[in-house]
């Protein structure tokens, strides 16, 4: 039976993962390149008429709306959509006490929240307690900090708006860029240093290998996030510095991987054969060992490191050490609206969280699928 080429492709190992991964990565790259060119609103436009608007996609609403959220929406609608102080309507709602951090700037009376306590109130401390880092992020922002008022208020908000009236869709697109570009910095560090170090260590062995090994083991004995915190502590928090440090902490993984492969390859004979054919060391390293034997590993590691760096970037932004507001990152969207998930404004955290998971999954799947394909090709 004659099968189409696509069918044959799907039969190979890892092809579904590669396919799914490249679709997601492609979307991400598209969002990074085009920026907000095709969204109705820019990330810094404030639609003050539509604060905390739920997504306009009906099925999504039905699927995701919690009971509390539905009540919330009903009240919103009852209070009129143009109300610029939705909080006033809901001041007595029990669910809303999680929002106290967010609502600080809306002038919500403090005693309202103080009257609520008990077991359910405690986790709020994490988000909005006296330390106040999370509240500070939102409170100090203010309208001016986020941009100017939107002109075209009649357009729909596909994924809803946040508490400042920013369009979620626009925020997600803007956040994509702040995930993707720092990831490239990480890759440049990790691969740019890790690959040569691995090649040298594997090819020359002996003392070179020992030096690289010592370097790797020093890096490996520090928890990655803690090392990044040390650097942040020493320097001003800057997402590109931290991504560079993340790249450095990934060097051991890349170089060990490459060195092990090179060591196995050295026993196979073509390196000896290349020396016999009077090739220079550089040509053996670059052509035989890197280009013809390890470039697949390079691309696999590229996507795995991208996944890793998105994970770390969003985490750092969440910890307020990464991308700082008003710059948008998926991590700091979640950080800035800590407890909204519990109070019915699910969309403010749900969509960024989904975007993070999907982006990481996409790169993971791509890398893993390519890895499976490589293993298949090498007959492992």
């Amino acid at each position, binding site marked *: 039976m004659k099968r189409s080429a696509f069918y044959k492709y799907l039969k190979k190992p890892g092809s579904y993962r590669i396919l799914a991964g490249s679709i997601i990565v492609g979307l991400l790259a598209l969002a990074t390149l085009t920026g907000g060119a095709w969204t109705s609103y820019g990330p810094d436009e404030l639609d003050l008429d539509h604060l905390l608007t739920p997504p306009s996609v009906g099925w999504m609403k039905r699927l995701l709306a919690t009971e509390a959220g539905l009540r919330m929406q009903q009240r919103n609608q009852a209070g009129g959509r143009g109300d610029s102080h939705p909080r006033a309507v809901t001041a007595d709602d029990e669910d809303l006490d999680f929002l106290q951090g967010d609502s600080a700037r809306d002038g919500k009376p403090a005693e309202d929240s103080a009257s609520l306590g008990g077991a359910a109130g405690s986790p709020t401390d994490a988000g909005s307690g006296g330390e106040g880092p999370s509240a500070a992020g939102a409170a100090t922002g203010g309208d001016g900090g986020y941009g100017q008022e939107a002109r075209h208020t009649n357009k729909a908000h596909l994924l809803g708006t946040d508490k400042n009236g920013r369009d979620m869709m626009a925020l997600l697109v803007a956040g994509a860029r702040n995930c993707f570009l720092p990831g490239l910095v990480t890759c440049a560090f990790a691969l740019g240093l890790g690959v040569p170090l691995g090649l040298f260590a594997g090819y020359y062995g002996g003392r070179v290998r020992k030096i690289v090994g010592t370097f790797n083991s020093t890096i490996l004995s520090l928890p990655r996030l803690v090392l990044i915190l040390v650097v942040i502590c020493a320097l001003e928090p800057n997402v590109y510095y931290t991504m560079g440090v993340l790249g450095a902490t990934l060097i051991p993984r890349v170089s060990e991987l490459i060195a092990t492969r090179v060591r196995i390859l050295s026993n196979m*004979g073509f390196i000896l*054969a290349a020396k016999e054919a009077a090739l220079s060391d550089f040509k053996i390293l670059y052509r*035989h060992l890197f280009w013809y*034997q390890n470039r697949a590993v390079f691309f696999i590691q590229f996507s795995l490191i991208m996944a890793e760096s998105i994970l770390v970037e969003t985490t750092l932004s969440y910890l307020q050490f990464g991308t700082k507001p008003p710059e948008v990152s998926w991590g700091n969207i979640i950080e800035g609206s800590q407890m909204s998930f519990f109070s019915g404004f699910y969309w403010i955290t749900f969509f960024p969280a989904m975007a993070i998971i999907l982006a990481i999954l996409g790169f993971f799947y791509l890398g893993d699928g390519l890895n499976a394909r490589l293993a298949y090709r090498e007959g492992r």
Partner: protein
Amino acid sequence: MLEVPLLSIKDLCIWFGGGGNYLKAVNHASLEVGRGEIVGLIGQSGSGKTTLAMGLLGLVKGYPGLWAGTAELDGKNLLPDMSRLITLKGDNVEKRYIPYQRAHRRQLHGVLGREIATIFQEPKASLDPFYTVGEHMLEALERNLDRHGGAATGGGLKAVGIGLLKDVGLVDAENLWGLHPHEISGGMAQRVMISMALCAKPKLLIADEPSTSLDVTTQAKLLQLFLHLRDKHGLSIIIISHDIGVIQEISSRIYVMHRGSVVETGASARVLSSPKHPYTASLLDSFSRFGEKLPMPPANPDAGKGCAYREMCAAYRGMLTQDERTRCEGDKPPGQAESLAAAAGVAPVDWSKCHYADKNKAHGPGTPSTANMDRLSAADGSQENIVEVRALRKRFSQGTRSFLALNDISLSIPKGGTYGLVGESGSGKSTLGLSLMALQDVDGGEIIYKGEDILKQSKARMLVLRREIRMLFQHPEGVLNSGMTIESILAEGLEREGRVETADKRRRVSEALEQVRLDPSHGARYPSNLSSGEKQRATIARALITKPAFLVCDEPVASLDLAIQSQVMSLLKEFQRHLGLSYLFISHNLALVKILAHRIGVMYMGYLVEEARVEHFTVSGVRHPYTRLLLASTPSLDPGIREVLAAYPDVEPVRLEGGCPFRNRCPVYLSKRDSICETAMPPLVEHSAGARVACHFPLG
């Protein structure tokens, strides 16, 4: 066969894959083993001989799509009822394979390791690296306590275990007991495996290529051990090998397999003297007429119409009448299964998959040609040497230990001739090859190539010399970078010639490919798309492209099938004749070296112990005891040669300090016990015309 056979396999099929697209690894094969009989199963790689044995034991890798057939050991069924579990249709094999595997394991419970014992090709890897030899033995003994009545206590078991180890020739068993697998040699590990097998007092021993990874001398002693086991314990043995020499030496009956089917079976003396099947004949040919161009067997004998072997069949080409030929062209000869059915279930004892098997001697192997002798004259006249090695010395050190891998080696390689270098692993022969290529630094000595010392040349001069001196390696798949096309691999050799035009490069690449009988279109392929023979020819082309004068061939055919070895050797011969190449031919196989070489040097533990012209190397002609051991150990069709082996003790080679390194294995020393052997390494001195020997008491 009158008695009931011990093992009887009928119509066994193991097919891989599914959905109508099967790889028929074992295709309707039947096999019988009598009590106390050694049966040989011979075939090249991919013939299904290992799959047959492993399938029987439920150890087959991957997921077979089809199982069929029966197997009985002493009346006990070894295979589960397959009709319920495996069907012919469908392509999702894995799911159904797992219940089959479970049922098979249940069926084999109490058989594996009890009635049937197995030993494998890689003896060292077959032992768990975390446990000592003693722990392995105890494990095997504890499982079979009932067969060693009265030895149930720990100390008693150890005594039994040591007794069993000594039984397989491990004299130093007490010492061995506490060692880990990485501390013992391959030959010792294989003996440990055998004695573990003996713990159960099994009825049948399956030996899957038991000696392939071992040195020839170790192999010869191991084969003697198999005979001893059969005589002492009444053990039946199936020995699986690709090496006719190994099989013929010990087996009483032979099954020849090709591409999953048995093509011939019979008493080994009959099969080896007058084969009835053209494939068997070609196997024998590639053994006895080594180094000549021989017809290749068909890749897929089940395809097409008529007998697929007719192209290589001497009878078809010569003796048969026109009518008889029509039958060969029209019908496939009946397989084992059909013959089985025709003989009412009694497996034919003397049978071949051929229409005219009864026309005995119709296929018989060709007589060894005299072509070997011609080449001797070629290099005779030239007294000129292309390479001279003088007092080459290399010391390797590993931690605190160090040893001389090359100990003042001096030899000269005639121009246009071949110098053969023979020795076991660890003898230093490959180190010498690499030193000659200047790929390995040495501690002293000179290598004179056409009057200049290679070791003292500048880098720039070496780049030129590297074009003239090239090397062939043992593993072609390692040499060819799997990510590059053949063309780009070959073109690398031209890089050092400065700028070469693309068209010129193309032309020279296809020229080189044509020289080694490869189609120029192969240049665009990747190494993984070539067969192992084609790969090795591509590495030869890789060397030839720079138009060399001298080739170092380091075991160039050791990893190839016999028929392909023959092909490669004939190519090498041809290049010597037409291009005037000189070779240093390194091999562990003295018979192989004798085909190509004019002079032969024998190395042992870093010393050159004997060197002479090729005619000198006969059992009666050689003067050094080690050379005679090598000669007698080399698998050959002449069984008489083995009698020499009896004089040699069964000990492992060790690097002895001071004195003659060979003395622990030397029958002369062991009878004389002369102290000079213990104190002084004998110098390499001229013994008779052109023969140099390093021995205090040279033979005969």
